[in-house]
């Protein structure tokens, strides 16, 4: 068999086995994605109710919220949320890029004087930032090993405590919001200080009994809202990761299919050419003998 034929055949085999892997990964991601979206759906009633109660209480204006006070920004904490594993298309790259861009554009001065801390969540974020020259807070980067509310709580409470202690003046989360399997919205969300809620629409106030009083209740409630919000970001990111991987692997499988088609055409051509040469050699040989 001519050398070229064998080469093409080997190539086809390797593409085929790669395709098998990408196909399997796509299936796995699809099922993980379903579980991840399930968790978001289960979380939603809780988060919505929390928001609703919050707005019910806060409708009485003039409440002094400790965690919403703006301070002069000296120390910054950035929390990029990525996945633990790669092969998810541009998913992790986009998060890292967005985080870097945020530091470059908004916190340039703080970065220069080494006042930017990175708290990576997810192994890829940790890898991307460990040599970036910023201070790294690596305590929580393995959160996705067992993603649960308890784990998320530890991180969000640590952040609130650090903010209260004045270690950081602003905390920003960079994550991918889940829209659907093919679309993620990469965004930066300010975690602390709490962004001012829009007081635009006033609901008719119900005469609630508040226990303890409104002020205290709000201040007790905000940490809970933040815990919920942070957990939601993690779930979102988790679902986005699987969605991104699913689309990436689907695309890869498709590309492999295309490559295989081209290769098989090439293979058949080479085979045909080999047969033709062989035939003409035989005919030529026979003619020479007769001559």
């Amino acid at each position: 068999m001519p050398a070229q034929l064998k080469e093409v055949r080997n190539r086809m085999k390797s593409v085929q086995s790669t395709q098998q892997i990408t196909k399997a990964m796509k299936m796995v991601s699809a099922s993980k994605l379903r579980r991840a979206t399930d968790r978001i759906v289960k979380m939603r009633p809780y988060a919505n109710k929390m928001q609703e109660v919050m707005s019910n209480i806060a409708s009485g204006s003039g409440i002094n919220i400790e965690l919403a006070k703006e301070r002069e920004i000296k120390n910054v904490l950035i929390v990029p949320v990525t996945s633990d594993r790669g092969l998810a298309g541009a998913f992790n790259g986009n998060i890292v890029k967005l985080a870097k861009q945020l530091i470059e554009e908004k916190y340039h001065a703080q970065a220069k004087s080494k006042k930017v801390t990175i708290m990576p969540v997810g192994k890829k974020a940790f890898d991307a930032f460990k040599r970036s020259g910023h201070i790294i807070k690596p305590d929580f980067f393995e959160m996705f090993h067992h993603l649960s509310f308890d784990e998320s709580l530890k991180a969000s409470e640590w952040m609130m405590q650090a903010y209260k202690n004045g270690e950081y003046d602003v905390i920003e989360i960079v994550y991918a919001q889940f829209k659907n399997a093919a679309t993620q919205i990469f965004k930066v969300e300010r975690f602390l200080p709490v962004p001012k809620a829009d007081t635009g629409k006033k609901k008719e106030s119900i005469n609630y009994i508040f226990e303890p009083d409104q002020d205290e209740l709000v201040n007790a409630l905000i940490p809970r809202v933040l815990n919920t919000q942070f957990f939601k970001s993690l779930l979102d990111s988790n679902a986005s990761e699987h969605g991104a991987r699913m689309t990436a692997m689907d695309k890869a499988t498709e590309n492999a299919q295309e490559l295989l088609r081209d290769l098989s055409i090439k293979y058949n051509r080479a085979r045909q050419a080999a047969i033709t040469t062989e035939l003409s050699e035989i005919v030529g040989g026979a003619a020479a003998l007769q001559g």
Partner: protein
Amino acid sequence: MQLDILTPEKKIFSGKAQSVSLPGVQGRFQVLENHAPIISALQKGELKVISDSQESKWNISGGLVEVLKNKVTVLVEAVV
């Protein structure tokens, strides 16, 4: 009255109940049919529900309750 107990990870109770007893931050209290509207923070303690003369209990780590028009929603941070 309608009672829903929600955690961030799942719904642990949804249905009719006759009585809910809650660990409020200013002391335990009980919610019965036609309770006045109230929003209260909850502390660590026991959450007791009587539904169809059956009693169920959970130990919660804290949370929040809202009662409005015979609809009770308990938001629980974690069940231990």
